[in-house]
């Protein structure tokens, strides 16, 4: 069970969180203006890297807030977490 750092509440067990997919997948500002291919990219295509992965979590059973984290998908170790819109740790 992961130990996850909520930027507002600190380290908490994974049971309190829900994973919310890859981070920095930006919803097009005007969806009507984008092509089917671009929309498909937004909806479905993911980096799915083996390595550092920027992802979203929600502290569902806690403060309820969404945030971003950087995790290595081979070791599952976190580099850090940061609020939405923030910059990932280097």
């Amino acid at each position, binding site marked *: *069970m992961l*130990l996850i750092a909520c930027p507002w509440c600190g380290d908490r067990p994974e049971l309190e969180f*829900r994973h919310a997919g890859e981070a920095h997948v930006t919803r*097009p500002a005007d969806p*009507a203006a984008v092509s089917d291919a671009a*929309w498909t990219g937004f909806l479905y295509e993911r980096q799915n890297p083996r390595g550092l992965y920027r992802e979203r979590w*929600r502290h569902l059973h806690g403060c309820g807030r969404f945030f971003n984290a950087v995790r290595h998908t081979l070791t599952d170790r976190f580099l850090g977490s940061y609020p939405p819109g923030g910059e990932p740790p280097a």
Partner: protein
Amino acid sequence: MRLPAGGRIDRDRPLHFTFDGRAYTGYAGDTLASALLAAGVSIFGRSFKYHRPRGLLAAGAEEPNALVEIDRGPGRREPNQRATMVPLEAGLVARSQNRWPSLRLDVGALAGLAAPLLPAGFYYKTFLGPRRDSWHRLWEPLIRRMAGLGRAPDAPDPDRYGNRFAHCETLVVGGGPAGIVAALTAAESGGRVILCDEQEELGGSLLATPEVMIDGQPCWESLAAAVAELRANPQVRVLTRTTAFHYGLQNFVALAQVLDRADGLRERLWQVRAGRVLLATGAIERPIPFPGNDRPGVMLAGAARSYCARWGVLPGQRAVLLAAHDSGYAAAFALADAGAAAGAGAVVPVILDLRAAPPEALVAAAAARGITVLAGHGVVETIGAGRISGLRAAPLRPDGTPDRGRATAMACDLLLMAGGWTPNVQLFSQSRGRLRWDAAADAFLPGGSPEAQASLGACNGTTELGAVLQEAAAAGRGEAQAAAAPAVPTALPIRAIAAGAVAARKAFVDFQNDVTTADLALAVREGFRSIEHVKRYTTTGMATDQGKTSGMMSLAVTAAVLGRDLPEVGLTSFRPPYTPTSFGTLAGRHRGAVFDPGRTAPMHDWAVEQGALLEPVGQWLRARAFPRGAEDLQAAVARECLAVRQAVGILDASTLGKIEVVGPDAAEFLERCYANAWHGLAPGRCRYGLLLREDGFLLDDGVVARLAPDRFHVTTTTGGAARVLHLLEDYRQTEFPELQVWLTSTTEHWGVAALQGPRARRVLAPLVEDLDLAALPHMGVAECRVAGFPARLFRVSFSGELGFEVNVPANRMPALWQALWQAGAPQGLTAYGTEAMHVLRAEKGFIIIGQETDGTVTPDDVGLGWAIGRKKRDFIGKRGLARAGMAAPDRRQLVGLAPADGRRPEEGAQLLAGARRAEGHVTSAYDSACLGRPFALGLLAGGRARHGETVFATRRDGPPQPLTVGSPVAWDPAGERLDG
């Protein structure tokens, strides 16, 4: 035989027990294994494949042979218990397993005669025919009967299992000398310490070596003092009979504690998050492969020493030691000395040492005891009917194989194997630590680890007691580990031992699964080069001991056959659990009613009193119908439906999801999320809202009420509440953070009583204050008082009749309900359940998310295209709907289906028209008391343009039945009844 004195047993407390129906007596402090061994029992079980008789190999958790069934009464029968880990208790009932008719005479042992035909993997090459299904029909049942070990329990387990979460600064796994010292020093340094050990008492290897001195004191005395100190320290939690079985990320370690408490609490799962983990898990002795090394009476040297010292049992009267490692000598000397003290004579006459030149000091010490050491000798074969009665030993040739021509026979009733030691690195490896091959230690040792952890003592390759204690104390204090002193080779390397046994016959490596060196050689010959392949092909290391005694030797034999070095061949991965862990422990308290805690609406108890039939809906338990007297479900539903259509019915609708959406941008937020238009909705009015996924498919629906310009009361489906709130929060927080809006789940805050039927207003009106009920329009909402309680009153209809939904604080709901119930009695107020609700809504063609929709359905498919705000620039799902294929005319569309033959079709029936190709399916089908006939809804390709057509619904009981396609609205198509 039991020695006249010694051991850690309480000779004043005899315990009576049975094994295979025969009565035995042991002592408190015995294990089942030590007590049976003391009683002269030598055969404990039968092996998996060949049903060979097997005795005790070990004394601890690694025991592969002595698996027994323990029977504590109905529901408490357990298979495959290691006799070495079962503490003796009064009245214990144990049985051997995997034999018929008896342990001594096992018909299954005939498999041994066919052994040449049954090498590793024989089943992949055979049982292929004669027919395609011959394996399943003919051969598999035979194989299955032969396989398996014990019998599964046959009744539900009445015992309970606990669960605790714990945090500590230091978790110490293993209560031997290293673990005890580490725990003591860690406690001195401050912080909480948890020390766990799988045995009944702390001490580990010291329990087998009373003669060892620590600080000039016999070690058992030092041990007692240390244990007392640990137990007295409030910062230290000592858990015995507790196995750390799973080492997860970030020092999250799961422990299984055996309690066997009289109150039925049997085991407890501890989930520990530790600042650091100190592993002091010890080492396991390696058996040596040679012909007949599995005969009862062939035992690990260290195990024999344990039985002798810890339990006062002399496991044989005439023992031969086969040594490849110095440690065997100490075991042999301990047995010899104990035997001499007990007047048993020369218990150990001979030591065979695989090494050409054993250390002189040891040879001399042996000579002093009158023991003959035959250096450079191995075992050609063992002899005996059942238990070992002798062996033939021979000098080794240069290639390490015994020279059979020069073999000599010697009698013995015990053969000790000292093949060296394998550090217990399983937990270290589970924590994703890297193992490194250490040639001097002749073992894989802990290397780098991503966790805050250290390995101490034997599991770290540190074997000399003084060094172990130093290493443990330093680790306990949190000091960096000094580089381990290079180990002094004390043994014949395992690779050399293996090389000498590759060609041997019936030299067992995995005792439980009957894997021999020849099987491993065969696997390599057949092209299985990866150790993982060898393991899977031969099943070596896959028995219930998880390869504890066999893993390293399998690797060594495979390396020898391949002609490679051991680390080149690699190690199979160590998988949790460390030892088998009961399902009950992992499941914990999540059983029965709290398996998945059920949610109940405020009127649940009342419904149960009324004799309601309940149904699970998601996590909720809802009243499905309220049968009266001898009514069945169908009759009750018909009566309830008619009551609603003709008079008035009441439904506990509190399970509906409810979200309060508040803020200056509340309307804009809903505008961007829901498919409908919201800005134009006036306060005091409601609208039926649709929520889509970004791909355009329907996700949820519900009535949304605007209470004020900045306040909405949003309802969702019962099952979708959490999903919807999560999705809305996601958009609020991450897509539209600029909007001033807040979301609060109010599902449990409001109790909802739905009154539906032409007389609904007559029931409700007398109870309403602060509102002119007659003036409340359909799809209107108002805040008022009902029966004296503050209420949100909706005029909405899910039945097509005049309808109201009264929301009051949930704790007021029973009182409201009683008031309505009394007021409604003269009007024929009838309670109805979810089934009648479904029928009533279906008669009106109203969909249910999840029944008419399935995640591949658009609003237009179910006739709800009108609800979409066409002029909106964007909402969730708008772009998805614009994709090709989302508006094709042949999409499946909602239709009403009238059976032409008067029979109710089955929900899920496929719809056909001519060809045997499905053109849709029946989504809902009911017998309608109101219509006086069965009817159905369905999704049909291009259905809206096919009204009047006849289609056919598949039936399981005969040919397809004809249905007439029509409007989904079967009741009151003009909508005239909404006003009562």
